[in-house]
């Protein structure tokens, strides 16, 4: 009885086994092909893991060429900068003592969102990537400047670092397009 049960289980499981095996192969190959370009691209950036995880978190990365990956990364910078600016505006109400550096940071992040990011997107889309490098490099500088303005007592350290590091990655990716 047990034998026939186990036999029938094996019999039933074979197509399932085959399907699962094919599935695994499919995923590894599909992932690896997408990973290949993402991996190769990210190897040319100073924060490999951040680069890979950021790009992979966006579905269209798996179908993108290097220019596409650059645009994905720039959009990630934009999103993190936007989050940071919202937080800054909240902090302005909560921490009046930090008003001066917070205001400075607000204008820095405003510039990132209204100047650096649009410049980078336009440059990538229209085909003059060096201006995308300028824009993303500048975003990294603005984030660092903002952090420095607190002289050690920053409530934004994690956020600034996220913007800074993703900007640096985006800049490194645009360099591949030059």
């Amino acid at each position, binding site marked *: 009885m047990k034998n026939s049960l186990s036999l029938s289980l094996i019999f039933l499981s074979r197509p399932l086994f085959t399907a*699962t095996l094919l599935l695994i192969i499919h995923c590894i190959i599909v992932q690896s092909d997408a990973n290949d370009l993402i991996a190769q691209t990210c190897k040319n950036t100073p924060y490999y893991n951040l680069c890979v995880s950021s790009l992979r978190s966006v579905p269209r990365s798996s179908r993108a060429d290097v220019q596409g990956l650059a645009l994905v990364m720039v959009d990630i910078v934009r999103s993190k900068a936007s989050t940071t600016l919202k937080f800054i505006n909240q902090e302005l109400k909560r921490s009046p003592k930090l008003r001066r550096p917070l205001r400075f940071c607000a204008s820095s992040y405003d510039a990132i969102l209204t100047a650096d990011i649009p*410049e980078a997107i336009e440059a990538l889309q229209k085909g003059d990537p060096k201006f995308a490098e300028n824009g993303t490099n500048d975003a990294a500088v603005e984030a660092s400047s903002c952090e420095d303005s607190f002289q050690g007592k920053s409530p934004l350290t994690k956020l600034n670092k996220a913007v800074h590091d993703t900007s640096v990655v985006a800049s490194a990716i645009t360099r591949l397009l030059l």
Partner: protein
Amino acid sequence: MADPSPLLPVSNSLEPSYNPVPEGTVSAGCPATRLRRSKKVLIAVFSGLLVVSLILATINNNSGAQHGDENASLAASRETAKPETLLPAGSRGVSAGVSEKANLKGAGVKDYPWNNSMLSWQRTAFHFQPEDNWMNDPNGPLYYKGWYHFFYQYNPNAAVWGDIVWGHAVSKDLIHWLHLPLAMVADEWYDKNGVWTGSATILPDGKIVMLYTGSTNESVQVQNLAYPADHNDPLLLRWVKYSGNPVLVPPPGIGAKDFRDPTTAWKTSEGKWRIIIGSKINKTGIALVYDTEDFINYTLSSGILHAVPKTGMWECVDFYPVSKTGQNGLDTSVNGPQVKHVVKTSLDDDRHDYYAIGTYDDKAAKWYPDNPEIDVGIGIRYDYGIFYASKTFYDQSKGRRVLWGWIGESDSEVADVKKGWASLQGIPRTVVLDTKTGSNLLQWPVEEVESLRLKSNDFNNMEVKAGSVVPLELDGATQTSFAEFELDKKAIERAAESNVEFSCSNNGGASHRGALGPFGLLVLADDNLSEYTPVYFFVAKGNNGSLKTFFCTDQSRSSVANDVRKEIYGSYVPVLKGEKLLVRILVDHSIIESFAQGGRTCITSRVYPTRAIYGAARLFLFNNATEAGVTSSLKIWNMNSAFIRPYSNEQQ
């Protein structure tokens, strides 16, 4: 009134072989990537039928976690990790030369928020800049019917690059500019995504032809023809785009985004017009050659004019003859035994302009450098500071070749947005061959800049002992100085030899002391020397007792602000026997242009002091050498404004 007669003989309208590029076809990836992708598509389709989303998610996570270990099997090759060679976050380092806004985490230096006083000081008095917003490459400079014309890449909407159109200005003397309405905007499908850089050719009958790059509505780079609507209008206000544009599309083998910036045309020995356009094949920078008789139909040369490996994309290429003997400029079509030819390129990879001198073979459409070790892109730069996308033109009214160069900002874009503008043009420079060395050019501000001189101050034989600073009793942020320096001869003989190779950027700037240098001027300094920009010479004594001179500008103390670039620029400068060390410096608010040995080595820098501004800006002589004293004589003029403003009908 529009010009009724066609500019050129009517010819068969060009049937472009260009079809709009389907999205996704053009990729910066190398061929292997594209192969892998099509394989992936096949397999994905085949096995896609078996996908169960839950299992998919589980396996995704697994392969993600293992990815780090599987690098060796997935990657094509194991590269040495480039990240390790990068400098502190945000900075690509001086050696990479990337145009960037490096952040200096000044220890304990308080953040310096910019106020309106500091920002408005930065605008120049006599350098070309539009009233506001962003500018980059010079375009189509020319002289016509009594006016110098200058066009430029312009963003009418922001202080950063974008929405690019052609700005326009005129001048009688290359110094006093009057702004005119925009010459060309992005109103055709073939330049919808950018009316980019181009050059003018003046035909023998005096008519003007403009070739420029358009970024099409699908971001393909093509070349277009434009010409003045009315050749009788000396202001050349309105421009017509040829109805059959584009006249050139990327040829086979050339990337759709690697085809831009056509040059001025010159006549070949066969009587055709010839232009070059920069491009690249993988990482080799090249110049494509096209011949035409009507500027509408072109023949691509089977070879290229020249190529240099590992230089990357060649932007804004330029090609022109220089006289071997004379001090005059030459029309672009001049050729012959008394002439050498210069090939110049702007390198996208490092944002610097390079030139090389060589020989042009008109029949073969080829050019060969005199010295391949200092070939295009790996040798001499026009300028060792900020100077890009430069372009020359032949000024037929004065028989000189004049060079324009785009001078970007080196502050933060926040500041640019706050102050509402970004970028300058350098003072136009004449360009001639240095007949004394034969191996480099000489660049010199056009003589018309001297018309701005106000009162002058002479300082004769000032002694500057080793390790001292001498104030010069004058002030101002707008001045031009001519200074000559002589090193104490005994100190030169005594100085120890060194086999350490000096370089401006790697030697700690003006505060690093050597036996025979650095010495020079402290520009835009405040009384306390909390801010100053040294422009200086450093003399190094090599192994066989030979002297090698370097010319540098050090921005590391130019401002207490921590969001401006603080690099040290400069290079070797040839100094011939018997020559004194000579420097000419133009200071015009936030731009400093310095020329050593009559223009053999030039450095343009942008500085943003917060204290050494307005009446507080001072000038000092300095000598930071450990052993040698220096004697210096100077002549310094205060400079008037050029009153650059919009053109109005009341004025001439």
